[in-house]
């Protein structure tokens, strides 16, 4: 709300300047500095922060129609897909798309945002007019889904995790990313409806 408040204040100053056409005295200059410089900077700063947080939300990801089914699946309390179950985790909640698809590490946020811009490009030029059915079978991850993302929360260190036979047997492969957590034999794909669509299309 700081963004909107600062913008409104700035708009009042600017409209006054445009309509009243005052003499350019020192006071006018300072008032204009507020209206054109300081207050819009506040709007831009808080707006950016707001925008940055908005880009992490599921509502934002589901804003493009081809992502609709993915967001709806996460919203569905009855869904048992990996993605939906993660969405019900209060630590991920509304931002579950971001947490599971973000790059981690030192520059993770930056690389995730650059990747997000690529999504926007792809959507605008390739997927904007695509039907949902077509999108379901053709949309795919760029590259491989890394276990490192899962291991941000599931460290593979806890005894309760290692007590599971399959985890224990494939511990090294899981850690060195040669066996995917989201592979069919393990926890399965996080969005199985898209994979089944792909298989149907291949038949």
């Amino acid at each position, binding site marked *: 709300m700081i*963004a909107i408040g600062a*913008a409104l204040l700035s708009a009042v100053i600017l409209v006054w300047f*445009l309509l009243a056409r005052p003499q350019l005295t020192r006071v006018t200059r300072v008032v*204009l500095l507020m209206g*054109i410089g300081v207050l819009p900077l506040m709007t831009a700063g808080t707006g950016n922060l707001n925008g940055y947080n*908005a880009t992490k939300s599921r509502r*934002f990801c589901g804003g493009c129609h081809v992502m609709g089914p993915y967001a709806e699946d996460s919203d569905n309390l009855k869904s048992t897909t990996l993605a939906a179950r993660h969405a019900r985790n209060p630590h991920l909640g509304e931002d579950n798309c971001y947490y599971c698809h973000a790059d981690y590490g030192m520059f993770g946020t930056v690389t995730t945002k650059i990747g997000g811009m690529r999504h926007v490009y792809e959507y605008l030029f390739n997927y904007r007019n695509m039907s949902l059915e077509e999108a379901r079978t053709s949309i795919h991850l760029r590259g491989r889904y890394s276990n490192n993302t899962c291991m941000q929360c599931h460290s593979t260190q806890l005894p309760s995790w290692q007590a599971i036979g399959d985890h224990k047997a494939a511990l090294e492969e899981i850690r060195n990313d040669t066996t995917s957590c989201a592979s069919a034999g393990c926890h399965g794909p996080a969005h199985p409806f898209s994979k089944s669509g792909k298989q149907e299309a291949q038949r």
Partner: protein
Amino acid sequence: MKLPRVRVRMMVLLRLSAVLTLVGLALMCWAVLQPTPLPTIVAMSLGQVVGTVAFGMFILAIVIDLRRDARARRRLIDSGEKIHQDLHEEPPA
């Protein structure tokens, strides 16, 4: 005759800067009120560019105004010095 033209250009710059700032603010507020992909991307790119250009124009206008003031002041000092010189000049023999 050069002085008034600079004044007009500066005021045009300021008004244009004010209008552009209003446009930039509108784009930024759009994203805050409707945080979906298009408004957010427009606000964080176009909105910021428009706002930055507007602020640049404001700075330019202020610099023009300050230089004009400085020039006028210098001219005033120069003319004052000339009067001073005229007053203290020795009369021709």
